[in-house]
């Protein structure tokens, strides 16, 4: 669960990225966070992942109060999240299997756990035959599937996808979004940050729209075609 209560964020250069955000995402939800470039979407993601701290207000993520979280607790909080990036961020010198293993090793998983979990997740994202391939040998869509598998492999309670389809064609973008929808149906909370109106409008999901550091709408329906708040 994510809770933002009157959250403001002002960067050191004086930029006011968020101007009093109130938002709640419950367990099991699928939410699109939409808005134009510079609206504050990335700042929301950075606050959720504890890369930055709010200037004012409270941020709660999966039971952790990020206003009072200690440096030692940050890795534990991040283990409850699976993060997907627009540019995939795969390690080119490692195979698909090794990329996933790397992520599991990072939290202290044993070889036995790796052997049990990785094939299952690869099958879930449709890459069960490509474990020995290197990222450079895969298409953009497949690389993003690997990134999704990596986000899932540690069994997080929430997936955060930051512009996951930004580098993909419409067909691959839809496939990725359908995959995320399936993951959500299996019980994982999903937060997708995007500015792709057409893609968002194909799904009947909750859409939180942000502009100039403020939430301008929050409801179920299409991009900006939702209840104004």
């Amino acid at each position, binding site marked *: 669960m994510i809770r933002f209560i009157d959250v403001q964020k002002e960067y050191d250069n004086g930029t006011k990225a968020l101007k009093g955000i109130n938002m709640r995402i419950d367990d099991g939800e699928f939410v699109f966070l939409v808005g134009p470039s510079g609206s504050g979407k990335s700042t929301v993601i950075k606050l959720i992942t504890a890369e930055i701290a709010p200037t004012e207000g409270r941020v709660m993520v999966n039971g952790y109060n990020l206003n009072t979280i200690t440096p030692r607790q940050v890795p534990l909080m991040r283990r409850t999240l699976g993060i997907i990036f627009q540019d995939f961020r795969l*390690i080119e010198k490692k195979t698909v299997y090794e990329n996933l293993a790397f992520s599991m090793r990072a939290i202290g998983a044993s070889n036995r756990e790796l052997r049990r979990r990785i094939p299952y997740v690869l099958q879930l994202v449709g890459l069960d035959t490509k474990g020995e391939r290197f990222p450079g040998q895969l298409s953009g869509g497949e690389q993003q599937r690997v990134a999704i598998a990596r986000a899932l492999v540690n069994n997080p309670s929430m997936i955060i996808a930051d512009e996951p389809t930004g580098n993909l064609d419409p067909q691959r973008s839809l496939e990725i979004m359908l995959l995320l929808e399936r993951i959500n149906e299996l019980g994982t909370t999903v937060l997708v940050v995007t500015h792709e109106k057409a893609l968002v409008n194909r799904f009947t999901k909750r859409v939180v729209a942000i502009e100039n550091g403020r939430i301008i709408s929050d409801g179920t329906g299409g991009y900006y075609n939702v209840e104004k708040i």
Partner: protein
Amino acid sequence: MSRKFDAGYFISEGVHSIFTHGFMSFAAVCMIVACLLIMGSFTLLAVNLDNTLGDLENENEMLVYIDDSLTEEQARALQPKLAQVDNVSQLTFVTREAALEEYKSKRESSVPLLADLPDDTLRHRYRVHVVDIERMAETEEALEQVEGVGKGNVRAAIDIANGFVMVRNIATGVAMVLVGILLVVSLFIIANTIKLATFYRREEIAIMKMCGATDGFIEWPFVVEGMILGLVGALIAFFVQWGLYQMVAKLAIQGNGLSLVNIISYGDMASTILMVFCAVGAFIGVGGSLFAIRKFLQV
């Protein structure tokens, strides 16, 4: 998923990383070798200089003249009292006859003139070596207090001793300052070399951080890598230093100008040099690694 320390994984990752980033590993080892050679060469020069000065110091003996009225037996009987004087390391009794013979032997050209000198021309004496030549003046004073010696009967080249002390202090001071500066410079160079290597891996570090890896988990493979690079550099530097040292020593022995220098064999110092090189190599390897990744951990 609760294991906190997986030594096998850290070692395998550290070793794997050395080969994956082969060129940067090679550059780091070269830097470590270069730094150790510079520091090692200078230190060995200082050690040899110190050793030579030590030998010269040892040759700087004091002469304690015994009262003319004492017989040889009485003079010999003074040895325990003289030996008890603080700072005295070695005593050698020289009879008046032996002293005269030695005197004559050093002045062969004047032998005809010295031939008729009676055996009791000179006095019985002790050759005295001291532990610390810096305390020569106080030792001289203490020896004069011994019954059978008396004031003015001790000859010590205090000016020469003070000269040795000054040269040694300056050499030690300069060596320590230079080695200290070189150590800091080496650490800086190694840190920058490893930082460059780490820069290519910032993405890996960022991914690990986002997955929930602790700083310790991320640092360990770098520690292993830095230590291995440091130790490999130390071993290479040890053998290169050996070759260089033998070459310079050979030239020094052949050159007449350096005949005063007493060169210590590399073999005599090998175990110490290896230990120091390994310790310094591991220190700059690990220190440089940790310094280099510090910035990338702040995600």
